[in-house]
Structures are given as C-alpha cells and as structure tokens.
C-alpha cells in the first residue's frame, strides 16, 4: 500500500555544504503492517518520515499510497513528531479536535469523536487540561490521539516514546499495539531501541550511517502478544544488534 521507490535526498546548507541524507531508499509496505526504522543518529530516518508525510520533497524518487503519488501533507497520513508538538494554547480536547475543525465537522460531533479517542489513550480525565499540565508520556499519548482522530491510513511516528522513562514506555508500547490491532493502521515507527523494535514490529528496517541507505530488513516472526523475555525475542535482538554494529551499542537504553 505504501510504496517507496528510489528516494534520494540531499540537504544544502546556507554555506553551500551538501549533506547527502538519503541514498536510494526502496521499501514496500503492506496494508496494516507495522514497520520500525532503526539506525544511527543522523542517518536520515526523520528525513524519510518527513518525505512520506509530505513535509519535505525528495530530490528524486516517488512515494505512493495505494497507488496515489503524494504531493504534500494529506489526511491519509498522520504523524507523531519526535519533539512535543501539542498546541500549547489549546486544551487537550481542543488539540484533538483540530483536524476535525479543519474538516468543518460540527462542534458537538467533533467533541464526541475527540472524547472517544481520548478514552482510547486513557486520558479522559484530562480533556480540559492544557499541555503544560501534562507529563511527557501523556503529551505523546495526546499527540497519538490527535493523529488518529483524522483517521489516517498510515501513521508515521518519529521516536514518540524517546523522552519517557522505561516503565511508561512499556505501557505506551502496549497501548499502541492495542490501538494498532483495533484500528489496523499501517504503522511506520522510528526508534533507537532494539528492544522496542523487536517488541512492536512486523519488520525492522536497519539504516546505515550517513548517507542513509537500507542496510538490512529483518522480519520479526514472533507471535503476538509478545513476551519480551522469551528466548526467541532475545535471538531477534541479538541479530538486530549485530547488524546495527558496535557504534550503536551505546545509544541503546
């Protein structure tokens, strides 16, 4: 359903330096597939996601969703950013209704829809709170609900749980899987954590360091619900780790 063909991307700095960020990326994603990107910092994972979201143009190559080439941001693709991205002047509920306002859905109706999604991420009690009153993990849950409410076919997530503690992260991963199994979205998820990738993904795409190329694609054939401590999970982690190489070892928490 999501088809990435021959994507190249070079950044030009103002001093005229060139940074080759992505080189010849090819990837086919099936409907409702959960794919993780993993790779060294600065290898171009965010860039790839931004190109898919339509926020950045590739120098060459095409991306299609169900055969439709993408031209810019669109409602078929939702995104959760690496940084906190809630609108600070809107309450939690109003953050979630944002895209529905853009679609001109009547007020009562959009608040109903928003409340349902808020329940999905377990934050009903915080509907009228402002983002600065939430913890980091809660903010990302709201951001997920905000992306889901638009009902995208593809959900792009850029290290959404990067800034939360290990326990919260485990809980958020479980919640995400529940949502994914329920809504059956196609999910593209960037992470630095081998553990996270093995717990979540159907396939894990390993990037090389800059310029980012696809080094290897791992199929994670573990049955769901997954057990982090199983021997098979361990084997998966080890082969992923060795592919990532020693430079990455330090980046893993």
């Amino acid at each position: 359903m999501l088809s990435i063909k021959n994507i190249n991307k070079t950044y030009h700095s103002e001093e005229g330096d060139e940074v080759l960020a992505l080189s010849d990326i090819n990837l086919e994603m099936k409907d409702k597939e959960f794919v993780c990107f993993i790779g060294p910092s600065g290898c171009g994972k965010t860039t790839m996601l931004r190109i898919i979201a339509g926020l950045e143009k590739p120098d060459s190559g095409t991306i299609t969703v169900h055969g439709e080439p993408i031209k810019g941001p669109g409602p078929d693709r939702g995104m959760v950013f690496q940084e906190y991205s809630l609108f600070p002047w809107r309450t939690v509920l109003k953050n979630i209704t944002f895209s529905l306002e853009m679609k001109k859905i009547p007020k009562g109706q959009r608040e109903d829809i928003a409340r349902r999604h808020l329940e999905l991420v377990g934050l009903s009690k915080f509907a009228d709170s402002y983002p600065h009153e939430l913890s980091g993990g809660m903010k990302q849950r709201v951001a997920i609900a905000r992306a889901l409410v638009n009902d995208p076919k593809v959900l792009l997530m850029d290290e959404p749980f990067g800034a939360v503690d290990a326990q919260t992260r485990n809980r958020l991963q479980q919640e995400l899987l529940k949502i994914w199994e329920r809504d059956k979205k196609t999910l593209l998820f960037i992470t630095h954590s081998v553990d996270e990738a093995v717990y979540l993904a159907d396939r894990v795409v390993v990037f090389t360091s800059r310029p980012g190329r696809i080094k290897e694609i791992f199929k994670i054939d573990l049955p769901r619900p997954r057990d982090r401590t199983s021997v098979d999970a361990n084997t998966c982690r080890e082969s992923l780790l060795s592919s990532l190489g020693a430079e990455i070892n330090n980046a893993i928490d």
Partner: protein
Amino acid sequence: MDIGQGLRKRTLELTSIATAIVIWEIVARIIDIKYILPSFTSVVSAFIELVLEGELYRDILTSLNYFVIGIGLAILVGMPIGTLMGWFKSIDRAVDPIIEMIRPIPPLAWITFAIMWFGLTQYAAGFVIFIGAVFPIIINTYTGFKNTPRVLVESGKVLGCVNNIDIIYRIALPFALPSIATGIRVGMGVGWMCVVAAELFAVSKYGLGWKIWFWNDLHHMDLVLTYMLVLGMIALIIDRVFRHIVQEWWLKWQSGVVV
C-alpha cells in the same frame, strides 16, 4: 483571605509608602515655598476639590480619549505589519529598513506635522501617541511570529491546516499572542508618556497633560503635582487592568506570569 490578612501581608509596602508621605510632608513644611514643593496635604485638598468640581473627571476622559485613538490605531496598524514581516521574509526585508529609519525619531518630534495634518484636534494628539506606541507593537508581533516553532506549523499542516492564512490565524497568531500582549503593554506605556506632550498644544480645554501646563503658568504647583500623580495612577491602573484581562482571557493556557 480577608482584608485584614491582606493588609498584614502588605505591611512592608504600606509602611514604605506612609514613610515617604511623612518625609514629603516634613520636607515641604521645612522648605515652605509651595512653588518648589507643595505639601502632601495641599495636594490632597487640591485633589479632593478637583474631584468634587467634576473637573478631574473631564480631564481624565479627554486624555483617555486621545490615548484610545492613538493606541487603537497603533494596534490596528502595528499588528498586521508585524505579522506580515514576521511571516514573509521578503516583506521583512523590504519594510525593515523603512521602519528602522522612522523608529529612532522621538515621537514628540512629530507634533508639528501632526498639527499640520490633523489641525488642533483630538486626532493630532492621537497621532503622536500612535507614533510612540506603534513600534513596540510591530516589533513584538514580529518576534512572536518569527519564533513560531517549526514543529507546531508542521503539526498543523499534517492535520489539514495547509494554506498560509489558516496557518497564520490558527497557529502562528495564538503562539504569538503573549509576545503581542507584551508589545501592546510596552506601547501603552510609551503612548501614555506621549499624552502630556501631545496636549501641550491646547487641542482642548481639558486633559491631564494640558492642565499641567495650564496650572504651571498660573504657578499653582499643588495642582500641577496633583495632575502629575493622577497621570501616574492612571498609567498604573491601565497597566493592571490590561494585565488582568490578558491573563484571564487570552493567555489562560500559559503557566506563570507572562507580561
């Protein structure tokens, strides 16, 4: 919290003010020349008289009228200019040199032109206040828009807010509001200072600034000082009211004090 408790918490502030007043009164009595320093008591009685005659009330309204004209215009002009400059680089580059040329001219230097253009009317006074207030508003609006985080704009785009007008109105403007509020607040401060000067040229028989010059010519220094204090008090009240409005209505979403 009852009033007694409130007063007790303010003991230091109240003592300080009371001490200043006592010293003022003593020094005034020692000097004993009311042209140099009218005493506190004489100022109070002058004030009471002005209030009872209803004169002060008309002066305040007259000055506020100029102020509202000037500040209103400054907001109407300053916010759009600041917005366009903050959002469109080419407009910024085109307009900035002009602004930087006009901005350093002291507002009072405009008085002669203000009278040439608008005659001895409320609009001449308003114009001088406008000149004083508009630049802080432009600059703070500009800064607010300029600092809009990229991730918020992109979040908006991904959520279906794609054209420039929608992005400005729904994302950049709300983000810039605290900065704009600061600009208006600073602009009001400068604008109020311009009131006295703007009224120097008898655009009306009333007005706080005008009355300072008027009573000065008659050597009624107790009245001059009364009007000075009223000018200060009104500035304080305007500032407090504005801050309250901003905090309660505009910027409830922010933690802590902003402006």
